[in-house]
């Protein structure tokens, strides 16, 4: 239904802005060297969030698109694993 679709778009838009704001803030803190402790935590956390979004997008996509997003997701999970190791 169009009402549900609109509400979903609004939620999606808000989520985009929240993710952008949080990640940019994190990146700013990290780049300024102001992060207390090891930077692995914020980097890996960002990687996890990204991996989740990519996996969800892959699940929602069809055809070749699903494979493209799945490959991107897998690569990011591999990088997250490397970060955490």
């Amino acid at each position, binding site marked *: 239904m169009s009402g549900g679709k609109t509400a979903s778009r609004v939620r999606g838009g808000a989520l985009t802005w929240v*993710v952008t704001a949080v990640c940019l803030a994190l990146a700013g803190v990290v780049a300024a060297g102001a992060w207390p402790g090891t930077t692995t935590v914020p980097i890996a956390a960002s990687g996890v969030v990204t991996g989740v979004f990519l996996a969800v997008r892959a699940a929602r996509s069809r055809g070749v698109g699903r494979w493209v997003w799945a490959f991107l997701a897998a690569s990011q999970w591999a990088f997250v694993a490397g970060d955490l190791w």
Partner: protein
Amino acid sequence: MRGIATPAAGLADVAYFAGYPVLAAGLVLLLFARAGRAALPAASDGLVVGVIGTLAVWHFILSELAPGSTRDLLVAAAYPIADVVLLACLAWLAAATGTRSTAATLIAVNVALNAGTDLAYAVDVAHGGSGDGPYLDGAYLVAYLALALAALHPSAARLTARAARDSAALSGGARVLLLGAGVVAAPFVGLMSAGHSHGAWFMTATAGLVVVLVARIAGVVNEANRDRAALADKEALLAHRALHDDLTSLPNRRGLLEELAVRLGRAGGDPVVVVVVAELDDFNLVNDGLGHATGDELLRRVADRLREAAREGELVARIGGDEFVMVTSTPEGSADALASARRVAATLEAPFALSTGEVYMGASLGVVVSDAEERRPAQELLRDAGIALYRAREGGRGQCQVFGGAMRQWVSERRSLENDLRRAIDHDEITLAYQPQVDLGTRLITGVEALARWQHPTRGNVSPAQFVPLAETTGLIVPLGERLLARACADARRWCDAHGPVLTVSVNVSARQLAQPGVVEQVRDVIAAGGVPPGVMVLELTETALATDPVRIRRRMEALRDLGLRIELDDFGTGQSSLAALRTFPLDAVKIDRGFMEGVGEDTRATHAVAAVVALIHALGLGSVAEGIETDDQARSMAALGCGRGQGYLFGRPSPPGVIDALLAEDRRLPAAPAVAPRIP
């Protein structure tokens, strides 16, 4: 090797290395999904980036590392090489599909940032740095953010949609930049190889780079040539379209004028140029009644026939909806001009076998002749031929007129009348007069026929014989007919309210009106708005109205009868007098044309002829109405022949509604003697 120690390899590297090929595979998959086969030629762009990047990594990073364990060295080399591969994939993707999709752009940002940060890290380490600058961590974070946003962005849903080649491929400027970078890099790398420990390898790579660049430049040149050829084809197509009609491929008005101008200006050509303009009669009936697809099919067939009929040197064109032109040059004058016109008419006479059935389609013709003494511009010739055509159409179907000077004045007056008629319809200046119809046995008035009358403020009384055909020709008959039907309904309702349903009210419906889509709904609305009881309103149709698309017209007539309307065939005997029409169409009565009344009761042959017509009508179970009764003898004879009703000056001329009011208020009997046996000489 300068002796900088390589970082020790660990398990984390295994996880990282697993990510690179997977990411590269995703990019290549995306690339082929968006560009398809067009991705292959763009591979050389990626190759250029790959070769330059590899040489740069070799020179700036790998050469700086001290030999450690083979494993550590491999790990240290693998990162920047993997980054270069990713950047090459990115260049390939951009070259093949562009980056018009926001999601694709964000993915590109992620890859570029990751690879760039890796390379910065590697350069830093190779030159003795720690590689742990906070700005590098910030860059990794932003890279993750870019990919997260790519997954969230609405364009992600269309990420793999096939990109249009023209709009998506790398722009010319970007391509020049890429190839320029390669061209500049090649000699630079060659210079670097001098004195280098792996100089031979560098030189080989440089040669390879040059080969790739040359191949790519050749490809770009080929592409440009193909584009230029395609552009030339498009230009030729556009030029052809500008001068030709899409439907029939004949020259259009502009093409005709250009060719005509050439012929008129050609020195030593034929002294006489004849232009014949043909317009199909009642093409609108086909277009409206059978649909535009059938109309288009008919136009194509007409074009084919004219093309086949044209002799060498003759030009056929289509200059408007159903207007065709044949231009011919002759050594003689107007006699040949008429011969050309006759040939065009003969060409269109035979029926056209269309996918929806057979259609007869004559044409009206306008002819203009231009001789050597009086050369006129092409535009003027075409205009005069149009005027002659206009004059021909006024004369009825299948007429032909050769242009003469007096026609301009005539056309001007005609146009003025048309404008006045348009205004008169808008201002309800066209009124109705009613002519009585009586029962020939009792002489009681049983109905009236509504007839249009136009009292023009300056022209005075304009004859229906003048303005009705004009309304038919111009299509104004449709709004006019609707308004007159509404007015007749209003009068009928008034008479019904005052005296009961004692009168039928007949209204004429033209062929054009009946062919109009939605005519049934239009009549239904007008009748409903007027509140007239069923059986009162009568629609009179002519045979012409039944001729085109009989199946559809019959369906419409049935629908109209279902609305409570009676349908009578008007002027029977003037047209084809088709018996099939009487039998096939859902009619209630037939009006015998006034022409049959001449000599009735006095001349044996005339009386027998009309007796046969009446008998035929009755045999088919239809009612009969005799038109044009002017004498009592005619009335009595028709009554004796069994004709039910009569109409004519004997019973009353067309009169304003008030006269009918007065008639109804009295005893409805018209002053004439009762019928007696016919006098058959």
